[in-house]
């Protein structure tokens, strides 16, 4: 057994251990922290499976944005007030839940073990289509996302926007159109202000870099957008800037810009390049990069507004 196999097994055990910790943690805050740690370990697993693109997304979304989202949600619920012990389910319910979980895991295991070898995959077709004419990208992942399954990629961003609409609709009627509740206290700590001033510009540059380099190396629109969202949130927490009103014209335009530009290019492709979402091969790369630029904007705004929560007005329920 080589040292790498040994490390891989240790990593797998760690992931399972942290997953168990997330479930059994008595304190809601501890569970959220454990979940973020779980996301970071999962990113390491993706690295070991030679999928750096997925690892970047997992670290940014699973470890970062989801963690912040859950902490913010827990703060609204007042985490300390929730006594998990007192809401213990009855024994019958516990046995039933455990039985269902075991059944589900068992069926999943049988399905995975009974897959034919080699497993059926669309990867060769996707790689061939993505590296064919009209792609022009060095990173096959981005090529598949933007040229082989472009419609799915576009719809994923629409789902993000729908999620933002869902969060906004939870707000009180009197608060409609107002900005979400501020991220931090009125007078944030000096250390946080310093961190935001020093980190946010550097982080924004790295976010743009990850998007830009995604054409030819691991990276891409989602990873870059998530990083930009994180930097926006740091600046918001330090109260260097304030959250926009949710009826602001620019905010709504930024939210829909990515899918809208994507759809417009797709329809233009139907007329100019012969099929829906086909790119004219002469300038496929600049087209894909400009779609991705608008996607980065939409993703950054959508993720931040998801964390910010529903519109808020003092006194409204």
């Amino acid at each position: 057994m080589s040292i790498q196999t040994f490390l891989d097994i240790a990593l797998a055990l760690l992931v399972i251990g942290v997953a168990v910790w997330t479930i059994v943690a008595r304190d809601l805050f501890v569970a959220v922290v454990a979940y973020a740690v779980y996301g970071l370990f999962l990113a390491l697993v993706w690295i070991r499976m030679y999928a750096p693109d997925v690892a970047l997304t997992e670290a940014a979304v699973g470890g970062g944005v989801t963690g912040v989202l859950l902490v913010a949600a827990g703060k609204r619920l007042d985490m300390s007030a929730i006594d998990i012990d007192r809401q213990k389910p009855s024994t019958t319910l516990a046995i039933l839940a455990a039985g269902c979980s075991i059944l589900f895991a068992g069926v999943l295991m049988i399905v995975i073990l009974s897959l034919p070898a080699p497993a059926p995959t669309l990867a060769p077709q996707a790689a061939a289509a993505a590296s064919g004419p009209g792609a022009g990208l060095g990173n096959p992942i981005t090529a598949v996302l933007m040229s082989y399954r472009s419609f799915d990629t576009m719809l994923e961003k629409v789902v993000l926007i729908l999620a933002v609409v869902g969060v906004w609709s939870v707000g009180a009627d009197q608060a409609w159109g107002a900005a979400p509740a501020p991220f931090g206290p009125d007078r944030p700590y000096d250390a946080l202000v310093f961190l935001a001033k020093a980190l946010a510009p550097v982080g924004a540059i790295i976010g743009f870099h990850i998007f830009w380099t995604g054409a030819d190396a691991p990276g891409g629109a989602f990873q870059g957008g998530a990083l930009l969202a994180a930097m926006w949130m740091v600046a918001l927490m330090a109260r260097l800037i304030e959250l926009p009103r949710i009826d602001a014209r620019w905010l709504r335009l930024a939210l829909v810009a990515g899918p809208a530009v994507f759809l417009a290019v797709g329809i233009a492709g139907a007329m100019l390049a012969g099929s829906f979402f086909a790119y004219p091969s002469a300038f496929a790369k600049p087209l894909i990069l400009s779609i991705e630029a608008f996607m980065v904007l939409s993703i950054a705004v959508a993720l931040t507004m998801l964390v910010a929560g529903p519109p808020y007005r003092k006194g409204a329920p």
Partner: protein
Amino acid sequence: MSTAIDAFTIVCVAAGVFFYVAGTVGLLRFPDSPSRLHALTKADNLGLGLVALGLLPREPSVLGALKIVVIWALVMLSGASTAQLIGRVLRRGRR
């Protein structure tokens, strides 16, 4: 030459790992939060710094080496700031 570089990397990374282990032991064993914070920042600053230093001569391009230095600087910045923030919250909670 390459033997010297290998030896340099091994010494630096081993020293870095030592600080990580020491920091983790401190995090687990120290009695109160400020001391635990103190142990943790040693791992962040010195541990990662030594690991980064050990990896520098193995990086073929200057740009790659620069990236390693930037990563170390960013972790120091966020680590130090986070330690400050946790410390402030602790002090506020004790009052």
